[in-house]
């Protein structure tokens, strides 16, 4: 018997036998194309859920802006107290999203992390609404603070999820689509909050602030919806991990916070590009309204339209450009292109009287290109197990830059006018451009990993798979 048994044993060792290599059989609706993690359709459906993960957060972030006059009147607060609702969101996040990213990597994992931060977002919005209901501004500030802790770290979780599911496939388009959804969330908020408020006032509550509180609670419903998305994502992600046998973090890959100092130079250059670029776009839009009114003599409505062109165009163009960048690869070149285009747009606005529609439309397109091409580069630089920390750092630096430059920009305009302000933004963009060029050079001298064309990436991925198969056979 033993002879025949040993005869039956394969000479080269088990490859596809035993539970080691057995494919899990998916039955029922789990086996359909839509639920099979091997199939792209499942990926796209999960993408839809992923996009709505931070929809609630983006929707509620701009609630104060949509209800500005109403809030100031109903709560009887000053303009600077009102702006405090935004400061309480952004300043803590200068540091907190770094820790959020680290917690996602080290402690919670991306699934638990997304759920926890979604809970923070919902709780924060509920506190904010409750503060309005009882007319206590301190409670509202606390609510915005809690909301902020959740909101920014939720973005980090969303980025991590995106890389996990789409690396090597449609990552650029996914980032573009996520940007698109953030704009859609904000726009929906701007358009429906006022009508909802008007509807609520019809219910005859005694005080204006009660109406406000009710409206904000309705906003919280969006956050609950996002919370459900987080729970659903967690379920699908766990299931896909099991079916696709994605490797978990092994003990010798444990992340320490000190690993941050070992991040390569290319990562820090990427952060500089991120800061240098975003501070030349968002604070500019914040101050753009008066600029268009004074320099071109636009009516306030028209100026508002021109100002929001960047948001509107990027909502549509980001996924399109993301898809394009997926096809061609060469992310660093796209980043350089986006930055150079934006420099051109600011130069047009600063030094000519050309209709700002042209410059702002181009800026919208350039922003879409850059946002889709920039964030996926980080996934090529750092290990997947450190991705949360990496995105946390990038976001933290970005928030710090935005918060500081918003104040600086206001000071520059008041003392030296809009031309100097535009020159300042051009200088920031030049810093981003220099960092991008250096990123290309440093990367080229280390093998050009970040700027590979899509064809090259696919070829290398196929070769890598072949190698891994060979390794398994040899074991």
């Amino acid at each position, binding site marked *: 018997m033993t002879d025949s048994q040993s005869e039956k044993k394969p000479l080269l060792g088990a490859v596809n036998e035993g539970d080691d290599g057995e494919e899990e059989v998916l039955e029922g609706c789990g086996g359909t194309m839509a639920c099979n993690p091997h199939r792209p359709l499942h990926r796209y459906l999960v993408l839809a859920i992923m996009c709505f993960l931070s929809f609630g957060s983006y929707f509620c972030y701009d609630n104060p802006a949509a209800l500005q006059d109403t809030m100031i009147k109903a709560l009887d607060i000053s303009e600077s107290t009102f702006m405090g609702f935004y400061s309480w969101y952004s300043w803590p996040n200068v540091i907190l999203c770094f820790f959020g990213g680290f917690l996602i990597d080290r402690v919670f994992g991306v699934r638990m992390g997304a759920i926890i931060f979604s809970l923070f977002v919902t709780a924060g919005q509920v506190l904010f609404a409750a503060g309005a209901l009882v007319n206590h501004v301190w409670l509202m500030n606390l609510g915005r603070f809690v909301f902020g802790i959740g909101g920014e770290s939720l973005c980090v979780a969303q980025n991590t999820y995106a890389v996990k599911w789409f690396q090597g496939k449609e990552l650029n388009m996914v980032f573009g689509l996520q940007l698109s959804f953030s704009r859609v969330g904000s726009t929906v908020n701007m358009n429906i909050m006022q009508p909802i408020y008007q509807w609520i006032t019809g219910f005859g509550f005694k005080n204006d602030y009660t109406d406000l509180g009710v409206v904000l609670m309705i906003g919280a419903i969006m956050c609950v919806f996002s919370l459900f998305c987080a729970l659903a994502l967690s379920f699908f992600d766990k299931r896909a991990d099991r079916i696709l046998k994605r490797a978990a973090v092994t003990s010798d890959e444990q992340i320490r916070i000190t690993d941050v100092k070992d991040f390569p130079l290319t990562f820090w250059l990427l952060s500089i590009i991120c800061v240098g670029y975003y501070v030349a776009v968002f604070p500019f839009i914040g101050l753009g309204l008066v600029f268009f009114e*004074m320099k071109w003599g636009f009516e306030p409505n028209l100026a508002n339209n021109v100002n929001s062109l960047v948001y509107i165009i990027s909502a549509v163009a980001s996924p399109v450009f993301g898809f394009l960048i997926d096809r061609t690869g060469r992310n660093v070149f796209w980043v350089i292109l986006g930055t150079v285009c934006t420099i051109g747009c600011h130069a047009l606005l600063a030094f000519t009287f050309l209709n700002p529609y042209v410059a702002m439309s181009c800026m919208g397109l350039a922003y879409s290109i850059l946002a889709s091409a920039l964030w996926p580069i980080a996934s090529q630089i750092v290990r997947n197990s450190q991705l949360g920390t990496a995105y946390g750092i990038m976001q933290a630096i970005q928030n710090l830059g935005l918060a500081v430059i918003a104040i600086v920009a206001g000071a520059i305009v008041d003392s030296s006018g809009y*031309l*100097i302000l535009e020159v300042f933004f*051009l200088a920031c963009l030049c810093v981003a451009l220099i960092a991008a060029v250096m990123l290309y050079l440093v990367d080229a001298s280390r093998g050009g990993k970040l700027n590979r064309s899509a064809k090259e990436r696919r070829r290398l991925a196929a070769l*890598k798979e072949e*190698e891994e198969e060979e390794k398994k056979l040899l074991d």
Partner: protein
Amino acid sequence: MLVKVFTLLLSFSYVISDGQVRQMVTSYNPGCQTQKCPECSPGVVYVQAKGDNDILHYVVSALGGPPTALVIKTNRPKERYQLNINCKMMASKNDTERKAAITLPSGLKEIYSYGVVFSRLFQYNDTADKADITAYNINSTKWRVYDFTEFEWQDITTWSSNNLIVMKVKTSGEVMDAAFYNESLVLQFHMFDHSDRSKELPHLLYDADSTQFDFTLQDIDTGNYSSARWGLETVLLGSDKKTAGMHIETKKSIDDEYTPGVFEMSNWLTRPGNEANGGYLQWKPVCYLKPGRARSVATKVDYTNLASTSDVNVDTFLQSSIMYSYFPDIMNVSRSATNFTFGLESDGGFTKTNFTSWTAQLGFGAPPEDKVSSLVVGVISAGLGLPVILIMFGGLFVIIKKKTSKEGYTDLDTDRSNIQ
């Protein structure tokens, strides 16, 4: 190194802006024995600005009612270069005496003369809140018209000094509904003997051929007007024939360094087409709603189309002003009028802060122009130059490296050098 380049560029710009320097001599109530002269009330100030080859004579006064600034440019003879000016004759009731009050002595030849007269103040209730004075006619809203002949002015010598001529109104009597108090209206002229930029917003560039004036309205009782706004009727005169036309040109500029948020400059030329030999009134379309001037309290200044003074019945005011003493034949002198209006829609009107202040410049020759500062040029060249240099050298470096590291043929299918 960059800092050194910047300071070099900055110092360059200072050297270039050096212009003519004049010697200024100020005298109060010329022709009177004492400086404070009750017969010449509210007072006349005569300033001579002596240059190398010419002299600008400024005569500023509210005598007769309308505040006036008359500028006469003459040659500079060796001696006797003072105007024959007698303020008692200017204040006289006798027309013949008034006509002869300002004359040129022999040897002094006029090159050109020009001046500005403020004739009337219009107050209207901007019910539509559009800040457009031309949108209303006499019946569509409430008006109050104050003409300056009804105003009483404080003594000009009280507040004036060598480089600053200050005219303030007195508390008005019943004739003007007691709406004005002491200092409700202040008009002050800054005299300059060199070129520089004003320290106060809107930071207009001046030179020795110009004077800047601040026109301030404050603490005026506007009665029951919900949104009162003002129009200042202004006349500019030049010593050309009355058929010579004047022109207001408004230039747009990309540069708002010196007046944040303001991208326009307007010049009212007495001799359009021959600016270098004519007079001008220059202003930026901005005025300020609080004494502490800043962008946050700025609002717009607009002007109506130039009109002939006879069409708007302003000639009688010109005749009451001191202009009549130098231009007896005032009906045949080149002159035109406009209304300067202050405010923008939704800024609350005059009633909100009860303060409006506007600065403009009256001068001879081509009006000064703002230039983009060297700081802007410096930052742009450094900012854009660096990446270009980096791209060029970096690109060269990459190409060279690729050429030197290539060794023979690599089979792509088996090339695993890039797998990590």
